[in-house]
């Protein structure tokens, strides 16, 4: 492909990876140079233009979906705003006793607008993402019922990041409805919030109050932001290119033909896939945070060292945090806050006590959250199973906790002791690996087949150099991966203790600072997986 054709709409799909040469050398530097050169008042327009060009280069005419979404949330926001203004005016003219009733009428009106907006946006996402899956299942049902009809499976093109920007759109409209943010009167500010190029591929899923103003009041690039941002990008690049992409051929080989391997190798494949996914996704997030930081924008963190969690519940508070927060704010609490659910909680508490009482309504809300979480990740049964698996794990964890505490008291064991904490971390990681096995499997049936083999035939027989060669890895790969994982582990432990590595580097003299920079760059150049013999791996969460 020549350079000119790379800049035609939809021709630069490689740019979805922030570590691709196209993005790092052809897209990002011109953005930074133009951004730095223009006066402050123009910076926001540069960010918006860069974001739209990025979207156009990756998705071509599908950019229309982004335009329509921005226009739609803008108009819905204004509609809600008009009702709120009318409500305030009406309430100020009404006696105190009648205000509650009047307010309720306006709230009902707003609720209808909100419902329409949510149905429209989530409906569009459902049609684009799940109509194929739905038709496939209808066909299977018709076949089972011996009905000789086969519906044509629709093949709809999905624009980049629709699962992410749709959630942002719904969050904005809901926050306007609740009065948490004012409806934006500037469609360009809203467009920048929805389309900011580093976050459109894999998130993080931001709330309007978190980033819209920061992006619109874009600042001059400062030395500290530039160096801190670049360090974060390099760290993410190391995770992605040295660990995730190096593991990819092996994971692919095992999951593409699992019949060739014993259960132990499949387990190894599941562990490697879990590591690959974490390094790929969190590495990309490091790049997103780093790029945003250069522009002086602080985005909400998406990861907080998830593999230090002692329970699945805690794991999901540290993994893909912005998605979990979205589900908590817009599904879990709204479901548990309905009148029926509150009554259910009150009654259940009286009968079942403080711990198990709230689990009844909480369990129903958790089911909704995890069903949606599974479905959000993909249109197949294995994703739904993945969601429900975590629902069962979290609910079971909550149910077992009081019994476990009683047991520890009886045997006089301190549940906070180091050894037990390590055991809980390992156990949680093992549960996560099993979940990811289903997540990576092509279909739920295949997932159960792999899990069955892993349990019934847990053997590493045949794990030798010949097999490793077949899996496109060698001992050197494992040494490089293990060393890099050790670096990530040490950094994570320090972060967990509240030490900011970048602050520590910044305190050193210029020679040490540049040595660290060069060492990291050289490490990635020497040990990164790219070039001949490697297939570039798209960001794994971009497909969701």
């Amino acid at each position: 492909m020549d350079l000119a054709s790379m800049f035609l709409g939809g021709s630069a799909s490689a740019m979805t990876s922030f570590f691709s040469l196209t993005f790092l050398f052809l897209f990002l530097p011109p953005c930074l140079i133009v951004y730095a050169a223009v006066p402050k008042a123009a910076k926001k327009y540069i960010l918006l233009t860069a974001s739209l060009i990025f979207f156009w280069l990756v998705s071509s005419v599908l950019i229309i979906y982004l335009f329509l979404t921005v226009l739609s949330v803008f108009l819905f926001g204004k509609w809600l705003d008009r009702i709120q203004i009318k409500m305030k005016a009406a309430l100020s003219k009404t006696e105190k006793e009648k205000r509650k009733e009047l307010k309720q009428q306006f709230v009902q009106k707003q609720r209808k607008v909100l419902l329409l907006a949510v149905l429209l946006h989530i409906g569009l996402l459902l049609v684009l993402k799940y109509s194929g899956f739905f038709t496939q299942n209808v066909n299977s049902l018709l076949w089972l019922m011996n009905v000789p009809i086969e519906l044509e499976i629709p093949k709809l093109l999905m624009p980049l990041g629709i699962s992410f920007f749709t959630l942002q759109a719904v969050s904005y409209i809901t926050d306007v409805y609740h009065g948490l943010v004012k409806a934006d009167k500037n469609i360009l500010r809203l467009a920048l919030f929805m389309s900011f190029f580093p976050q459109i591929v894999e998130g993080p899923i931001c709330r309007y109050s978190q980033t819209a103003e920061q992006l619109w009041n874009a600042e001059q690039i400062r030395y500290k932001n530039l160096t801190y941002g670049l360090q974060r990008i390099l760290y993410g690049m190391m995770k992605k290119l040295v660990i995730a992409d190096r593991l990819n051929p092996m994971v692919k080989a095992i999951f593409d033909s699992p019949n060739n391997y014993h259960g132990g190798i499949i387990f190894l494949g599941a562990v490697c896939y879990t590591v690959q996914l974490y390094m790929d996704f969190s590495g990309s997030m490091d790049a997103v945070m780093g790029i945003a930081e250069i522009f002086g924008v602080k985005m909400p963190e998406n990861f907080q060292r998830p593999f230090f969690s002692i329970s699945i519940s805690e794991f999901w508070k540290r993994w893909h945090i912005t998605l979990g927060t979205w589900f908590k704010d817009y599904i879990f609490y709204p479901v548990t806050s309905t009148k029926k659910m509150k009554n259910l909680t009150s009654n259940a508490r009286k009968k079942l006590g403080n711990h198990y009482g709230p689990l009844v309504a909480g369990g129903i809300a958790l089911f909704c959250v995890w069903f949606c979480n599974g479905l959000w990740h993909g249109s197949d049964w294995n994703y739904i199973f993945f969601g429900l698996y975590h629902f069962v794990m979290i609910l079971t964890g909550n149910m077992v906790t009081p019994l476990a505490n009683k047991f520890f008291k009886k045997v006089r064991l301190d549940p906070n002791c180091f050894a037990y904490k390590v055991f809980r971390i390992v156990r949680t990681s093992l549960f996560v690996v099993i979940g990811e096995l289903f997540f990576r499997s092509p279909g739920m049936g295949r997932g159960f087949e792999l899990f069955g083999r892993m349990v019934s035939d847990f053997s590493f027989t045949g794990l030798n150099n010949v097999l490793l060669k077949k899996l496109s890895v060698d001992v050197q790969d494992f040494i490089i991966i293990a060393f890099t994982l050790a670096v990530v582990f040490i950094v994570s432990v320090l972060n967990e203790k509240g030490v900011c590595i970048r602050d520590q580097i910044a305190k050193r003299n210029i020679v040490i600072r540049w040595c660290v920079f060069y060492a990291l760059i050289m490490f990635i150049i020497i040990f990164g997986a790219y070039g001949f013999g490697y297939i570039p791996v798209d960001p794994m969460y971009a497909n969701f």
Partner: protein
Amino acid sequence: MDRLIEILEDIKPDVDYATCETLIDSHILESLDIISLIAELEEEYGVTIPAIEIVPENFNSAQRIKKMIERLEEEY
């Protein structure tokens, strides 16, 4: 305030509610405790606590919970 602390202690004992200001941030009150607390507060004070009020700023300390209740009582 005493009654509020009683309710909190009933839901999650062994916490110093008089001084703790990070009930949510330090994961002392988990989402299921919040569900219980809301049901109990609504019953005790006759207010409605909508989902929008469930933010750390309103639940991080007993003092903040009290302020939220007073505000909601005034609104209705």
